[in-house]
């Protein structure tokens, strides 16, 4: 068999939360038997965005903040690929915020994995959009991506995981990948992934995480309930984790971008471009101009 690019050693610091994500991606791909050539991983800019270098995968390293726009291009060009976009909180919630909000609206079937460490690690520890007040002099309110995503009424899959709990993370990732492989839409996972060098939150987060499925009234098909549970959990000083929205079988996106633009599974990248195969259609089109 022809030799393709071999994974390289991760650039991450020992103990980085991103290792947990890397392991979960490998396990999930194994469990779902996704061969490397069928998986496209679009990486952002930052420590986390280099994850595709450490896997046997079609990797594309996007521009800072643009990984979702590129991932959507990949998926719409070849809907048979399983597409994962993976980056950090700065990449997704600061420079990439415009595309982030729109991705829920586009509802293209791909998994977006944000490794949130509440800091810009690669540039040495500046405050990020999710940083707590006081961190590195931060005086802006931290952004909660889960609350935002719950407010967008589109049947997306939404979850938060913690790198300190790889088992739960793998289970959620498997579910998210299946969701996208069934062409059900966009799956967003925010993983709490501590930066051991600039914001070592392992201990703090382990104490603070609250599995939402354990809460009274937990219903991941009901956005209002989940929004309230997440808010109440935050008010108690806890961080909600788990599946935040799992569209019920009858909550289907009938008008989404993917359905409208891709009448079948062939897609632009695999279409026959030869003149002969298209001659009748081309001739009719050209003759319509008079």
């Amino acid at each position: 068999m022809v030799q393709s690019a071999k994974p390289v050693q991760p650039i991450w610091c020992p103990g980085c939360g991103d290792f947990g994500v890397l392991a979960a991606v490998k396990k999930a791909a194994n469990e779902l038997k996704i061969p490397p050539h069928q998986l496209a991983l679009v990486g952002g800019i930052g420590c986390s965005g280099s994850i595709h270098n450490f896997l046997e995968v079609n990797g594309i390293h996007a521009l800072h903040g643009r990984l979702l726009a590129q991932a959507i291009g990949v998926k719409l060009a070849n809907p048979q690929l399983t597409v994962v976009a993976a980056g950090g909180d700065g990449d997704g919630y600061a420079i990439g915020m415009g595309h982030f909000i729109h991705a829920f609206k586009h509802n293209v079937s791909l998994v977006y994995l944000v490794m949130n460490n509440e800091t810009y690690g690669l540039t040495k520890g500046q405050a990020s959009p999710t940083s707590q007040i006081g961190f590195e002099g931060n005086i802006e309110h931290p952004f909660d991506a889960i609350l935002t995503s719950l407010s967008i009424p589109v049947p997306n899959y939404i979850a938060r995981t913690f790198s300190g709990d790889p088992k739960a993370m793998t289970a959620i990732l498997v579910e998210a990948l299946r969701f996208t492989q069934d062409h059900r839409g966009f799956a967003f996972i925010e993983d709490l992934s501590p930066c051991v060098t600039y914001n070592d939150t392992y201990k703090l987060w382990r104490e603070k995480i609250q599995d939402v499925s354990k809460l009274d009234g937990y219903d991941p098909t009901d956005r209002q309930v989940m929004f309230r549970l997440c808010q109440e959990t935050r008010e108690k000083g806890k961080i909600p984790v788990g599946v935040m929205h799992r569209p019920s079988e009858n909550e289907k996106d009938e008008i989404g971008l993917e359905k409208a633009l891709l009448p079948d599974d062939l897609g632009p990248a695999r279409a026959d471009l030869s003149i002969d195969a298209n001659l009748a259609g081309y001739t009719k089109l050209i003759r319509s101009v008079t």
Partner: protein
Amino acid sequence: MSSSVANISKHATGSETAPPTSRKVLSDLSVMIGGQGGDGTLTVSDLLGRYFRKLGLYVYTSRNVLSRIRGGHADASVRASSHPTSAVKPDVDVLLAFDHEAAELGSKELGPEGVIIYDSSVFSTSLPNSYGFPFATLVGGQVGQPIYKNTAAYGAVSVLLGFDETLARQVIEERFQRRGAEALQKNLKALEIGRQAAFGVPEILQRWTVQPGEAHDQILSIGNQAVALGFVVGGGRFFSGYPITPATEIMEYLQRYLQPFHGVVRQAEDELAAINNVLGAAYAGARAMTSTSGPGLSLMTEGIGQAGAAEIPVVVADCQRVGPSTGEPTRHEQSDLAHLAHLGHGEYPRFIIAPGTVLECFEMTVQALNLAEKWRLPVILLLDQALCQNTVTSPPFDVSKVKVERGPILTSDELAKMAEYRVYQSTDTGVSPYALPGTPGVWAEVTGNEHDEWGHVSVSVPNRVAMMQKRMGKMTKAAPDLPKGKFFGPEDAKVGIIGFGSTTGPIWEAQDLLSQRRVATRFYQPRTLYPVLGSEVDAFLKSVEVCYVVEHNFTGQFANLLREAVPWHHAKLKSILKYDGHSFRSPELVRAIVGGA
């Protein structure tokens, strides 16, 4: 000079029984229609264009509108000629004015024998050769709705220009039958009102007739439509764009054209998303393009740089408008070239190719797609507002001449014979064979970071040098593959002219005017602007004593690129520049050349 309603009806009866015989025959004429946005000026220009085409004439229509939905001054001009033309006629023969501003502005472009027809129910004027008809009042009274005044005005112009009555009616029927029987009847009635009004004025009735032509095999199109069609037949299958004047029609046409061919057209949330959608799709193996204008191009600059560094084939159609900043969105300029030649931070290869006609827009969009994939880099299809949006008769587009050339794409069979798949493999051409993601058994890393042959990030010194040479070398190695220039006029002419894009039309016309004054010129239309094709330019400049570089910008951007490429010809190059938002009129070029030669 306004005629009264009573006068019109009195004269109308007599004129129909005694058809005029002493009309002057026109074989090249221009009608300008002006008013407030919403007055229906574009409809009249469309009606006139349809009529002239039925007569077998070549047609060139330009429009001058503001960046607003309604209101504000708007005008359009229709040129009809028995010879091919793609330039605005320098002198207007008929000015149809719906308001005072249109009369004042348009009269400045009126030829010495030009006639003004105006709506005297809106304003009156004492401009020479002006004839007022109360179109809005007449139509308001007899049809019930003054909005049909524009069709009545078309009727008056049809009498002035000696139109065949049956053909003039046919044009109305074709234009309005889709709107339903009532709208059609009202328009036909308005036409008759306008005709009867004009019959009352002998000076109008006796004046002109238009000579039929032989251009019946032509189509009528705009550059933006030709680009969209070229994209489809050239195998383009993924388009993402963001609305921006004057590029939007490319996206709108593709929304109509592409889906039956498994294509995807997306209106993105911004230009950053548009170029990055295109990068993702092109990476996945789709032939992909975006289109934009100056402000959007600025936003796309980082993405185009990634296409150069990561060797992803993308096409960007830039419909240039007046800059800098938001500039004048609806007006014409060619001032993005210098930016494009040096686009982005760092250094990467790119080709800038520029069609000069609507037919070339079709053909060169196919070329742009081929070049992008064959050389795996960004290709800029450089257009300008006049080329993108002015309507022109063109030879029909020919699918049988289209060739889809995809460059080295690895099949599973080819891969099976290989030991290794290195996505950035070093080759003689600098182009690495590519396996589309999804090809069984292979995968790769693609990145805008400096990388080794496998796509792994690398800061190795020998690798960096080799990769820079691999990528930048494409610019010289591709030269024989890039669109060649076209030459017009006698080979031994000593006065040279260089111009690209829509300036071709006015330059051809200026060449005719100059030859009438015994000034022989040779016009070189370069179609690859960057990299400058040094040997082609050098040979041309050697053949002339002086060369005028015609451009719509302030600094002479292409002349400066030429000076960089062939500095030894520096002294021969003289710039003719225009940056007022309007395209060149041929006499301006004649004055600049005869005055300066």
